[in-house]
């Protein structure tokens, strides 16, 4: 065998710490190694050229690249091999950066470790066999999960390219959290004015099949060929027949006493309701857990009487629909952190304390107060807005929620505009990083007070007579240190608005389990590379919007369209190449015991009859090459193409 070893300096990343000359000398002494070269950046064009030349001139048949993690450049170097006429799997990456130079403090010992890593890669690569990639056709349809602004943007872009989209939304309407807002920063556009045309476009686009009040319950298959089950819950009103006249809602004899989820529980609705007037589909929904017909079976059913379209149908039942798609876009969005966890802020205890989303609903002209800011029945004269509620807090959520600074400034501006109240913003660090944001911050500074300091406590217990009078007026006292003045203050406020952390939507964990993808330490979907593949979660599965991490509307839309682009690119190519690094069954040895079937996380194995004998069979288009089956097989009948026992043994022995 003729092995070439290529050692990358990676600038100072490797060469600044390991003794490259020593590594070269060492690699030259290894059996079967015919050439060793080092270069500043092996992944660069000239670096690749070195390998290409050598393969041709020195007739190499195996290549080891000692460089960074295979996650980064294995694909690059495999391509170099295949362009030079060598099977791409005759390559092994020796990771001397992430697993060596970056993580050690003793240069001499680290160089010794790097030698072993290179030696084991050389021994391993000699056992590699030629593997061929397989092509699989991509089903030209896309599933989008979540109908907020991210899901809507992704769906529209894909559908406009002529590709069919299934858009699944858990709530009765699409629009997501953005539909709750009054205005958006920094332009102060009316949220509904820019969102509702997009919602209507979804409804009208023939390429989009919309499932509201629905959930994804099962996903099988892999990139290019996903089989998806969608649970469609009954709405009890026929969407096609309904004209959205709202007569049914008006006629329902139930008083509107049920806290509305859409109105963040500050508004009330009936058991039959439409979340907001521009909802899509523009059809009310009946909640069977609240409707008198379902609970008592004794209801005059006025709704049915008044409906001229005959759209009310109490017989509707839940159904499961199965669809097949080539790619999946996750756009499940966010929910707010529950600030009642922070007992010192008294959310839920004081009538003066609201979340930012509740105030968005108050400001909205279609909201429960018709756009008026009301606390205890009157307009507030002094309002506090508290940033970083639960965000950047070791006790609750450690990360920055990214949008709170800006929406808090926006709320400050809107409240000032509507009520002329005295508004205070309490911040720790002001993060106004986006285009036009700093300018917006500057203009808001002219109308509100901005205090650097975290609110320590919100209380209704007075310390003196002045405070007692204020509390009796229905105010609460906000305790904080103005850290720039170095002074502790207690100021009475009519209204306190908390800007809570953004956290993943309910059901995110469950969806990750269904899709077999991983979440990051904060519970958001984990992208495979934060910079270079920020929308890719797994082959054929893309993420966008707040499901990937807190972000504002412009970033959500940009990322949604990026995810749509990823899906369209795949569909336009028409096929995907499957890694041949899968498991396979040695039918001679297989006893058909079936131990491997339940351990496969991808449901790729079944037990079938082959010439009268039961044998395990692996569907290689589903196999992701994790190797669990190979490890579990009692008769060692399952093997992994790139991890044969001999290969692993050679690798380990040469490491020791």
């Amino acid at each position: 065998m003729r092995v070439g070893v290529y050692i990358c300096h990676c600038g100072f990343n490797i060469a600044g710490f390991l003794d490259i000359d020593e590594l070269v000398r060492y690699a030259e002494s290894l059996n079967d190694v015919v050439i060793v070269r080092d270069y500043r950046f092996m992944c660069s064009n000239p670096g690749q050229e070195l390998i290409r030349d050598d393969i041709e001139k020195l007739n190499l048949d195996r290549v080891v690249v000692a460089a960074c993690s295979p996650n980064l450049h294995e694909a690059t170097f495999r391509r170099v091999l295949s362009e030079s006429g060598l099977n791409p799997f005759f390559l092994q990456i020796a990771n001397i950066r992430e697993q060596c130079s970056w993580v050690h403090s003793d240069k001499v010992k680290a160089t010794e470790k790097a030698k072993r890593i290179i030696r084991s890669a050389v021994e391993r690569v000699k056992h590699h066999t030629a593997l061929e990639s397989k092509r699989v056709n991509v089903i030209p349809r896309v599933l989008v999960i979540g109908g907020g602004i991210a899901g809507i943007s992704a769906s529209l872009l894909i559908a406009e390219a002529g590709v069919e989209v299934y858009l699944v939304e858990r709530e009765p309407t699409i629009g997501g959290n953005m539909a709750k807002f009054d205005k958006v920063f920094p332009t102060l556009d009316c949220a509904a004015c820019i969102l509702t045309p997009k919602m209507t476009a979804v409804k009208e686009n023939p390429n989009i099949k919309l499932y509201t009040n629905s959930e994804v319950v099962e996903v099988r298959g892999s990139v290019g060929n996903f089989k998806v089950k969608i649970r469609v819950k009954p709405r009890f009103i026929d969407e096609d027949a309904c004209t959205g006249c709202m007569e049914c809602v008006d006629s329902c004899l139930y008083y509107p006493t049920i806290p509305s989820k859409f109105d963040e529980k500050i508004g009330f609705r009936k058991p039959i309701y439409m979340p907001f007037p521009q909802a899509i589909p523009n059809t009310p929904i009946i909640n069977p857990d609240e409707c008198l017909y379902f609970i008592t079976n004794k209801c005059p059913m006025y709704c049915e009487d008044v409906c001229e379209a005959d759209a009310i149908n109490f017989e509707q039942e839940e159904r499961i629909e199965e669809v097949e798609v080539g790619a999946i876009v996750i756009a499940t969005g966010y929910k707010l952190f529950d600030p009642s966890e922070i007992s010192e802020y008294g959310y839920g205890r004081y009538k003066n304390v609201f979340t930012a989303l509740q105030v968005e609903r108050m400001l909205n002209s279609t909201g429960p107060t018709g756009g008026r800011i009301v606390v205890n029945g009157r307009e507030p004269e002094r309002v506090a807005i508290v940033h970083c509620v639960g965000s950047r807090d070791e006790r609750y959520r450690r990360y920055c929620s990214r949008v709170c600074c800006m929406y808090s400034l926006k709320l400050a501006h809107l409240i000032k505009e509507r009520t002329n109240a005295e508004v205070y913003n309490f911040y720790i660090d002001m993060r106004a990083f986006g285009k036009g944001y700093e300018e917006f911050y500057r203009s808001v500074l002219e109308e509100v007070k901005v205090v650097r300091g975290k609110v320590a406590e919100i209380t209704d217990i007075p310390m003196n007579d002045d405070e007692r009078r204020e509390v009796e007026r229905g105010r609460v006292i906000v305790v904080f240190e103005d850290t720039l003045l170095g002074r502790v203050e207690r100021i009475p406020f009519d209204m306190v608005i908390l800007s809570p952390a953004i956290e993943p939507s309910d059901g995110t964990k469950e969806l990750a389990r269904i899709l077999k993808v991983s979440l990051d330490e904060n519970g958001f979907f984990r992208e495979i590379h934060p910079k270079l593949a920020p929308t890719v979660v797994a082959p054929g599965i893309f993420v966008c919007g707040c499901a990937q991490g807190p972000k504002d509307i412009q970033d959500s839309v940009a990322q949604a369209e990026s995810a749509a682009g990823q899906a369209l690119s795949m569909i336009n190519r028409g096929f995907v190449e499957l890694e041949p690094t899968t498991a396979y069954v040695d039918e001679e040895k297989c006893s058909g015991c079936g131990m491997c079937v339940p351990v496969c996380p991808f449901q790729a194995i079944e037990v079938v009859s082959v010439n009268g004998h039961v044998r395990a069979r692996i569907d290689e288009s589903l196999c992701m090459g994790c190797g669990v089956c190979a490890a579990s097989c009692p008769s060692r009948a399952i093997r992994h193409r790139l991890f044969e026992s001999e290969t692993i043994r050679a690798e380990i022995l040469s490491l020791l």
Partner: protein
Amino acid sequence: MVEVLSESYQNKFGYEGLTRCYQCGNCTAICPVSDGRFPRRLIAHLRWGRIERFDEVWLCLQCKLCDEFCPRDTNPSLAMQTLKRISVENGSVPPHIGEFLMNVYRRRNPWGHSRMKRGEWMKDLNVPTVKDCEFDWLWFVGCANSFDSRVLGVTEKIARILNELEISYAVLGRDEGCCGNDVKRIGEDGLFELLMEENFKVFKRYGVERIITHSPHCYNTFKNDYNIEVKLFLELLHDFINDGSVELKHEFKKVVTYHDSCFLGRYNNIYELPREILRSVPGLKLVEMRSNRRTSICCGGGAGNIAVGYQGKVQPSILRVKEALDVNADVLAVACPFCKIMLEEASKSVNCNLKVLDVVDIVYHSMYGEGL
């Protein structure tokens, strides 16, 4: 004078968590005794390594309330302790703390009573000492419970209960020293090491393996600094109430509110044990003050202030008594001799009918129908 610390000095006096602070001011705003100049501002100084003489640091009672409210796990109370260590090292300690340290150094108690008198409280009681019997448990009585007339009654009651329950215990008498808990909290690490060494010698001489104590201060340092097996007397009492060995027969028809000791609560997470004991007393109605459990405020007796009294403008003991009066309590129950001394004094100074009683006082009354 501004002194920028060298790196080695900073390593010596820094602590993990200092760099996490984002200067939000929660600690300063929540501190009941802060004049606005600490802890937040001092953490910024410490982080810079700019150490001036900060007299305000001695207003800090090391009660850890700020730690509970810190969003960054910075532990501002540790920053205060660190600054105190630097002051002690530089010899700039205010007189009232100096007196405390001198008393502990010379006589092994905060008040400067004669060491010879440590065993005097048991003159007329039948209390076994380590010299004259075999024992399972060492009862470490503690300075306050040995010397201070305001809590001697509690000590006597504990002795009677221990005898009655036939616990195999003994006390050290004259050989008992100071546990050093508060010495450590105010940063006199040298003296603390000395006390600890001395105590370990005594424990070894008499074969002490396990300790019971009623003082949360002793309990804290034995548990967390000495790492020796230690049990609270209240834990013992709780066990015996539960298994029926202690019968609470007599009614105590009073509205009682319980004041959490910092060293039981925030230092050792013991919030419910004293409350459960109080709830098992027949007739007793337990109410909570507005700051309770992890948000409870200090009595003002911590960090060396027990000897001369707290020197700050705001007396936390008076705030506490007012809180108890706000919930119409007849009795303010405590589980720490320092709390009892401080709060009793405060209750007298605001001239109210609030009685300050130890949990042991209440249990004793319920057992024997006397002693109040």
